[in-house]
């Protein structure tokens, strides 16, 4: 069986430390997959591998049957993979609309973009996006002055502007209030189906709300996979989490 | 055979001067990430201090060395406290700021004592030559070689075996964490910069009897020293030594077969290619990105 996004026995090591060690993961199109695990399980590295930030030393990564692991980051992005980083990464010196304009990347060539000026037709749509994530009051300000929560939202908005088929989210709700987290959950549920999402999170209540299937990583490999109930009942998962006070305390 | 030896010693002599200038630069760059374009001016100030002490105080070069080290080190400390410490977050801007400081020092010297060439006398005990394995060698150059070896050993000892060196290495790895453990990172940085500057001053004083002293003499040294540091890899003292010897011998060899211009161009091109393919330096193993 082949899935839409597939990691086959992927491994990578840094100076002998195997951060991801024989990870196999299959995600179907339109699915929202949650990726959890104790600290140091290799979740972020798994996302790094998919988006090309880290190249695997072993194994292969396929999107719709097309191998990604030998491509450069921008080629992987063009293939349809978008990424939100754990530490929110936006363009601090650019304004919110400018950030969105950069993220809106239908054309990626130098000369194709040379004749496009920032006030194009699309900018209206982009501003609706800024409104949607509650940044309509900060349109004139450089992104560097936004609060942590707002920066999180901006990066999510950047991904919506980019509109990739696969969205990788690394701890999207970190630093958000309970209200904002709920809003994020709603958004994710809407994105599901149209996009394929992989979400790395620690907040179990958030995961319970959005997830269908959870994949648990431990020490660089896949430990378990299943619904929330399956995972909560799984003794191996409980053992892996024991040091950090059980799954809900992670 | 004698010819090969002669070539080898010429190269070694070039290498020891290269290392002398590069050592301070390597510490400042490796430890603080500061590209110090004013390094050449520290060298120049060391040479001028030697000249001034000889001319106005009548002090011989050898006893002057101690004074020179402290004079230039204090100046370096003032520079670090006054300017550089504000720029640790903006490494590219340190290039600009240190270059501006270099211009200030150069012009200040030019205005104070004029732009003409000055000469420093070689200490008479060292101004003869000796024969070694059938090769004529200048005693002064042997002396420089010895001083460089001693300074290198001292630096290595300071970095690896003393508490201040340990604190410095802690600050290099994680400044905030080190500060949490009560290490005064500011003081460490100030002292490191001062030490690097002092070494440059010594370098200037030591080469002053071999070359004429002028306000712009530092520029050539700083370029060569940079090559040594880049080639050796930052944060690697042993790499700095290896690359100084390599570059010294190479320059000596190429200069013998070709003219100086070609030698220099080739060396620069080699550096460019090196940075392209091994930005971490020749003698440093790759670390986690």
């Amino acid at each position, binding site marked *: 069986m082949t899935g839409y996004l597939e990691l086959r026995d992927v491994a990578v090591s840094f100076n002998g430390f195997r951060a991801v060690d024989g990870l196999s993961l299959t995600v179907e199109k339109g699915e929202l997959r949650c990726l959890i695990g104790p600290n140091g399980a290799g979740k972020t590295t798994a996302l790094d591998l998919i988006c090309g930030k880290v190249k695997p030393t072993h194994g292969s990564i396929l999107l719709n049957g097309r191998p990604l692991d030998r491509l450069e980051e921008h080629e992987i992005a063009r293939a349809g993979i978008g990424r939100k980083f754990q530490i929110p990464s936006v363009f601090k010196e650019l304004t919110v609309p400018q950030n969105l304009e950069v993220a809106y990347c239908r054309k990626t060539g130098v000369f194709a973009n040379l004749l496009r*000026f920032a006030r194009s037709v699309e900018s209206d749509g982009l501003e609706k996006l800024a409104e949607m994530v509650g940044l309509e009051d900060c349109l004139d300000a450089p992104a560097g002055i936004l609060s942590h929560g707002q920066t999180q939202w901006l990066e999510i908005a950047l991904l919506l502007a980019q509109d990739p088929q696969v969205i990788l989210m690394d701890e999207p709700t970190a630093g958000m209030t309970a209200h904002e987290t709920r809003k994020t959950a709603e958004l994710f549920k809407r994105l599901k189906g149209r996009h394929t999402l992989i979400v790395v999170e620690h907040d179990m209540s958030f995961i319970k709300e959005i997830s269908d299937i959870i994949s648990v990583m431990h020490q660089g490999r896949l430990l378990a996979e299943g619904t929330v109930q399956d995972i909560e009942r799984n003794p191996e998962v409980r053992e892996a989490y024991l040091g950090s006070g059980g799954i809900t305390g992670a | 055979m004698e010819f090969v030896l002669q070539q080898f010693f010429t190269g070694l002599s070039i290498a020891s001067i290269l290392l002398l200038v590069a050592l301070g630069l390597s510490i400042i760059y490796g430890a603080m990430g500061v590209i110090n374009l004013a390094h050449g001016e520290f060298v120049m100030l060391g040479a001028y201090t030697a000249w001034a002490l000889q001319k106005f105080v009548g002090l011989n070069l050898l006893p002057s060395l101690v004074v020179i080290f402290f004079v230039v080190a204090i100046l370096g400390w003032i520079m670090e406290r006054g300017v550089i410490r504000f720029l640790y977050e903006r490494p590219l801007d340190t290039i600009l700021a240190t270059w501006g400081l270099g211009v200030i020092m150069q012009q200040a010297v030019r205005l104070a004592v004029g732009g003409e060439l000055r000469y420093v006398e070689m200490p008479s005990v060292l101004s003869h030559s000796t024969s070694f394995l059938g090769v004529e060698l200048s005693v002064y150059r042997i002396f420089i070689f010895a001083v460089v070896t001693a300074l290198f050993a001292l630096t290595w000892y300071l970095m690896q075996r003393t508490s201040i060196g340990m604190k410095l290495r802690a600050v290099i790895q994680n400044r905030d964490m080190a500060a949490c453990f009560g290490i005064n990172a500011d003081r460490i940085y100030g002292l490191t910069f001062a030490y690097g500057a002092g070494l440059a001053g010594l370098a200037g004083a030591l080469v002053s009897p071999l070359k004429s002293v002028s306000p712009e003499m530092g520029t050539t040294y700083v370029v060569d020293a940079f090559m040594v540091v880049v080639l050796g890899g930052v944060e690697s003292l042993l790499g700095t030594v290896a690359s100084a010897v390599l570059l010294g011998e190479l320059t000596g060899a190429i200069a013998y077969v070709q003219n100086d211009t070609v030698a220099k161009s080739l060396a620069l091109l080699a550096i460019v290619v090196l940075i392209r393919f091994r930005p971490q330096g020749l003698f440093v193993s790759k670390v986690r990105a």
Partner: protein
Amino acid sequence: MVARIDSTSDRVPVLRRTWVQISIYGAVCLAIFLVPVVLDNDFLLNKYARYLVLGILAMALSLSWGYCGILNLGQALSFGLGSYCMAMALKLRTVPVHTGEGGLPDFMVWNNVQELPWFWAPFYSMPFALFAGIAVPVLLAVLLGWFVFRARITGVYVAIISLAALVVVNLLIIDQQRYTGGFNGITDLAQLEILGMEFDAYSSASYYLVATVLTVCLFAALAITKSKTGLIMQAIRDHEDRVRYFGYDVAHFKIFAFAASAAIAGIAGMLYTIVMEFASPTFLGVPLSLSVVIWCAVGGRQSLLGAMLGAILVTGMQGALSESETFLDTWMLVMGGVFVAVVLFLPKGLAGLVETIVEHLFGQGRAARAATGKPAAGKDVSGTGKKAEEAA
């Protein structure tokens, strides 16, 4: 998520600011054009034309450094190559007068060169020379950029490599005296003649030529920075790695910025030969190249106009003080101090200072409007300039 009816009005200031910017740029260019009307002194016009040319050069650096974060310490390389291309063409026009029809440029005769080198021959054609003055620097920039940026070399290393490239070419030009005039450069040139118009260095014609080219280059560069490519360049300056994950090939954009900057610098170099009436290795020397960085930083690296005016201001002052050597030395000392102060306190240069002042005077409405919005955002907006500077 309350939809605000007037949310689109927030876009108006951005649009208006672009128009204000264009008007200011236009006004400065107009003022430059008006100088010969009030000043009937060919000697001074020539002097001012030189400052303007250096202004174009600094503006070119602003495009790559200020907008794309590429600190090119070898900016004078493109400038010098452009200058030599023009000088070669103008030198060949003197051959019939100096050494007779079918002869060689005089310095080659003195160096016992028997035959015109192959790379000199095409410069008999002025269109070729004009083309080469842009194409040679661009080609070199693309090659160097491809070599450097494909490997993701950034920051300090780019600065070192660009400086090294400059020194290598400079050394070669000085060394190859037989073909390049060596240390003396290429002197004793003919006057440029295009479409029947003569451009005497000491005439308003040359001044107008420089002013026209300056205007065209300035607005072309402005158009680049206002395009989406320009926006992506700024995003790369800000956070290079993030840009990749949107599917842009960062190396391509950097090479483009590097090459566009080289093209403008090459054009400036050609003009410099015309107004100086010679080409010299000092045009691609390290001192000039580093000076460009100073001008750019003082004027404001993130402002094309600021960088240009910075160059004109600094070189103008330098020119005024160059009568006495002590004055000049003191001036260089002061410049060093000013430069350090600018790097420390005004990372955006004088242009940034002006911008902050203007925003404080006229920006009240915008700040007030923003303050009614989210408290987290409103709180900070009044300090935008300062915050952004700290982030930079």
